[in-house]
């Protein structure tokens, strides 16, 4: 299912000159922005529950699919359809938490891993029932492309950069300045202490799933006009988003963004210089290398294992 979603078209085999290099770099950053949004979703849920949500990639799929549905089937104008798609995805995230995560009160990580894996499968399958097995497309937010130092960049990519940047800024603002954000941070640091000052940790977990789903939904909405979407693209985004999160260092939002951009760049550079045959394997190999060699991530602090 990884190879079923080409995230960008590689042009390997040619000598790489400067504009072309820039072209690859921009493509890498574009994909990296998507990975960063998914990685942020992993980070938010991980911070509040201590588990990885293996269904995170499905939110990307849903963001795209639901937006397409709102646009094509409901006939809403594109901005409204996108908004609805993302918000519905957030709602799915909340419902998923309430129905599948919350009933398991002991929070056993092994159990939650398996639940989210099951959830991932269920969400993609339900999407197939609802929207069919075919690939879906969305019109670009703006047509055409711009020229940057000889490299051409589709305007849609600018939208992707913009959406990712706005999401990161809003998220930072929310975490730093709003009561809700502070409450979520407090829960992530110490659940019991948070409970003592009147924060309901369960509520924060639910919200973190909603927020993670919205971020995934945004990624799906932003990328669908370029790459199309289908019911089975979720796991691919999930793995790449997780690779980005772990590359940066799980648990730190800025590291997640850096990890996403780095992964995107590494991927597109490997296509530029090595080969596109194993393009999809690159992020997986990076994932394994980071897990095996430096599980705390490139930008995470050193962490010694605690007994």
């Amino acid at each position, binding site marked *: *299912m*990884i*190879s079923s979603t080409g995230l960008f078209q590689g042009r390997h085999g040619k000598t790489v000159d400067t504009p072309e290099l820039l072209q690859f770099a921009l493509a890498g950053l574009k994909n990296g922005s998507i990975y960063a949004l998914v990685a942020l979703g992993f980070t938010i849920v991980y911070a509040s529950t201590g*588990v*990885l949500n*293996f269904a995170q990639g499905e939110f990307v799929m849903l963001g795209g699919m639901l937006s397409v549905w709102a646009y094509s089937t409901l006939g809403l104008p594109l901005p409204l359809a996108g908004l609805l798609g993302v918000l519905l995805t957030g709602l799915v995230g909340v419902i998923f938490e309430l129905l*599948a995560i919350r*009933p*398991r009160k002991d929070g056993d*990580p*092994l*159990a939650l*891993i*398996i*639940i989210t*894996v*099951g*959830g991932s*499968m*269920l969400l*993609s*399958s*339900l999407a197939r*029932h609802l929207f069919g097995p075919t690939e879906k497309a969305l019109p670009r937010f703006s047509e055409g492309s711009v020229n940057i130092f000889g490299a051409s960049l589709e305007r849609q990519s600018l939208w992707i950069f913009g959406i990712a940047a706005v999401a990161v800024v809003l998220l930072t603002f929310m975490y730093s300045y709003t009561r809700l954000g502070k409450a979520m941070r407090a829960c992530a640091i110490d659940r019991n202490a948070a409970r003592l000052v009147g924060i309901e940790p369960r509520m924060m977990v639910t919200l973190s799933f909603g927020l993670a789903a919205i971020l995934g939904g945004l990624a799906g909405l932003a990328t669908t006009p370029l790459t199309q979407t289908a019911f089975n693209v979720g*796991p691919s985004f999930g*793995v790449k988003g*997780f*690779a980005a999160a*772990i590359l940066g260092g799980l648990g730190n939002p800025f590291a997640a963004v850096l990890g996403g951009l780095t992964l995107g760049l590494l991927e597109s550079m490997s296509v530029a210089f090595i080969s596109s*045959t*194993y393009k*999809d*394997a690159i992020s*997986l*190999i990076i*994932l*394994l290398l980071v*897990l*095996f060699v430096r*599980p705390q991530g490139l930008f995470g602090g050193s962490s010694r*294992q605690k*007994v």
Partner: protein
Amino acid sequence: MSGRSLNISRFLTVRAAIVAVLLLVVAVLPLFVTGTDARYVLKVLTFVGINVLIVTGLALLFGYAGQVSLGHAAFYGLGAYASAYVTATLGMPWFVGLAAAIAVTALGGLALAVPSLRLRGHYLAMATLGFGEIMRIVFVEASSITGGPDGFSGIPLPSLGSFVFATPQSIYWLVWGVAALAIMISYNIVSGRPGRSMRALHGSELGAMASGVDLVGLKVRVFVISAVFAGVAGSLYAATVGFVSPSTFTFHFSVVLVAMAVLGGTRSLAGPAAAAILLTLVSFPDIVLPGLSRDILAVVQDWEVDIYALVIILVVLFLPEGIAGAGRRVLGLLRRGVVEPSGSDSGTGQRGDEA
């Protein structure tokens, strides 16, 4: 004391009798499969046996040692391709193909287990998932060996010496024979010293280390055994179906295997085997209910993935002990008449009395 021993041995006799009856049923089942679709039914039942074999390995890894693998389909695939390559491309006998499957999956298991030693829980799950996906890409891209996305066809039937397993019955017996052997081996392992250390690892890593259990060696060994079981299953699959393609060895199938292990329950071999039978038959409801209309069949097959996914979620939420747990409860009730309650059903606690 002697009365107690007597009761336990009576209980064990009951258990042995159940196992014997089950073995007999599995063994003679093909003789009762007749009619026009006998070939199809036997094929499905053979496929059930293959899944039982893989899930038994997963039961050791997940159910006993508490280590997650979301990449077991890759080992299944490795075994299938290794066996296919050796028998079809190199023209060697199936037995050599099987040996190659064992060797390759053992190496694969080692290659994944050794660097994963430090990883726990979700990190291990992700690493195995990543490994599985990389292997799947390799199956697709290394087309000179694997046949690429179109698959690998013309794989000869399994054979031993001059005997070729050509009839559906003989293939069924071969697969189920291997599965039964694997379960027996696993049973011996889990009721002895290695099994105890696996459960200890599951219970408390610190406690296990402080008891002198070599966790490194243990984890690697369990991983390798589990991978080899899947590899043997792959070899059987390749030879009996005659065709393999990457679409069989997906993340999706790895999750289905996990669903079987989870539904089966931890610290059990019978539970996961039963779950493998049940969940495999979900895809072929017409085997269980022969009169089923085509339409219903189509609906069930359309919703098969949802069924697997729901099974996973609901079992973890509401039946965390799985089939094995339910079985233990029933056995516990039966047992109360025969022998006083005792720790676990795997029989280790009673070994001394049994001997």
